[in-house]
């Protein structure tokens, strides 16, 4: 009985730790997500090089289009 009680408490403790890690970012807290440095296309040179590597390896290109920066503004 005592062993079961300890197991239950351990399970509850572990669950509390896991679930307390879930956090929703509110719309007014998305300033960092909207920052320029979060943009996938912020470095055109890097994009060109990545595209070249991708083309060389896969013999295809394109399909990289992603809209917005993740700020949830729209």
């Amino acid at each position, binding site marked *: 009985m005592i062993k079961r009680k300890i197991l*239950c408490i351990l399970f509850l403790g572990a669950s509390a730790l896991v679930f307390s890690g879930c956090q929703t970012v509110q*719309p*007014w807290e*998305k*300033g960092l997500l909207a920052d320029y440095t979060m943009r996938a296309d912020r470095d055109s040179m890097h994009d060109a090089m990545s595209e070249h590597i991708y083309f060389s390896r896969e013999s295809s290109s394109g399909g990289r289009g992603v809209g917005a920066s993740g700020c949830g*503004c*729209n």
Partner: protein
Amino acid sequence: MWSVNFRTLWFVAILGLFTTVVSLALEPGDALPEWANFELEGDVPDLAGKVVMVDAWASWCAPCKASFPAYAKLQQEWADRGFVILGVSVDRKAKDYARFLKQTPPGFTTVRDVSQKLAATLKPPAMPTSFIFGRDGKLRKVHKGYRGDRTVELLRSEIEPLLAESR
């Protein structure tokens, strides 16, 4: 005796783990916030007896910036009839806020919600969000986002009747 208490504890704990904390946003009928309860940078003008649009915005929010000229025009047009727009910036950094205001003066009064406690009270569902309060200080409408002329027309159709109300 122990087993009953332990079962109760177990039930409450499990319920607590799977229960989402629901914190409700302002709803129509709720009163204007008590500004003194929040840490605001800038002065809130006298809003008593006026139709007030509280606009939650941020310097990093492009649609907020796009909305300013149209909102400033509304403010200018209806100022004599007792319409006030109060911008509430949720910028965390004072320098971002100051730089933005210098580059893009909004055309209406704005304050910065320093600790974001006002934002946590208003709970704007998107950026920007406009909260429209009647002359009685009660919330009438909430507008999520800014969609150009469509939003402005909607605001016009909703604010006009509020301006016509007596104090």
